[in-house]
């Protein structure tokens, strides 16, 4: 007998899903442009804001997936993934918008506290995940490290030679996060996690 009991969503449902995702992306972009002054914002702030929005939207999308396609194995992995993504997004937003509401000192220590919390959640995620997820995490890290260290070397050489202007550490952080997200998509797609 070759009957498969897995019910894959129909093509229409998949197209509808993609359309919903595209619409969500459009609405997010429109909302982001509406609440921020992207034209007057420095490029490094814009980039980090975009990264923060991507991380938070990914976390929200993960919440939807968790409720629509619940899975008991690996236990707690979904929740931890959401916590890690949300904290990463908030940590990128705080240095930009936090000083409006509190002193920079307080915001800095809040970021450090969140960073510790996120590191713990990341470690728990690694311990909870099964071997495929661990492999994807390791491949993402390796790919991102390889890409970023190559780019850093080229940039450092050009900067030392006085050919380009210096980039702020904040800008580099945004670039690093962007590269990491792209590497994460590539590693996930290679292992079939994106389908």
């Amino acid at each position, binding site marked *: *007998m070759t009957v*498969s009991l*897995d019910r894959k969503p129909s093509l229409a449902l998949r197209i509808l899903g993609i359309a919903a995702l595209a619409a969500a992306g459009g609405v997010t972009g429109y909302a982001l442009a509406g609440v921020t002054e992207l034209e007057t914002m420095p490029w490094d702030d814009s980039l980090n804001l975009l990264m923060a929005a991507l991380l938070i939207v990914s976390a929200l999308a993960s919440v939807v997936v968790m409720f629509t396609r619940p*899975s008991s194995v*690996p236990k707690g992995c979904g929740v931890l993934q959401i916590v890690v993504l949300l904290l990463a997004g908030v940590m990128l937003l705080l240095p930009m918008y936090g000083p409006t509401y509190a002193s920079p000192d307080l915001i800095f220590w809040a970021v450090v506290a969140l960073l510790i919390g996120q590191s713990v959640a990341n470690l728990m995620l690694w311990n909870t995940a099964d071997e495929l*997820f661990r492999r994807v995490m390791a491949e993402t890290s390796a790919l991102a490290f390889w890409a970023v260290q190559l780019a850093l070397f080229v940039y450092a050489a050009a900067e030392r030679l006085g050919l380009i202007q210096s980039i702020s550490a904040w800008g580099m952080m945004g670039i690093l996060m962007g590269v990491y997200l792209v590497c994460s998509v590539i590693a996930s797609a*290679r292992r*079939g996690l994106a389908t």
Partner: protein
Amino acid sequence: MNNRLKVLRAERNWSQAELADRLGVSRQTVNALETGRYDPSLPLAFKIARVFEQPIESIFTD
């Protein structure tokens, strides 16, 4: 590496989620194994062999 996971699972009328539960891995891992996108570790290969009650070499071929 090729494997007969999909056939063996279908013979038992198990869904990917059911097999994943028996193996203690995610459904995505079973899917990646079946589509050849991921080769299991040795401990997982042994577990698969135990679940299907077959020797490893009859499930996995290179």
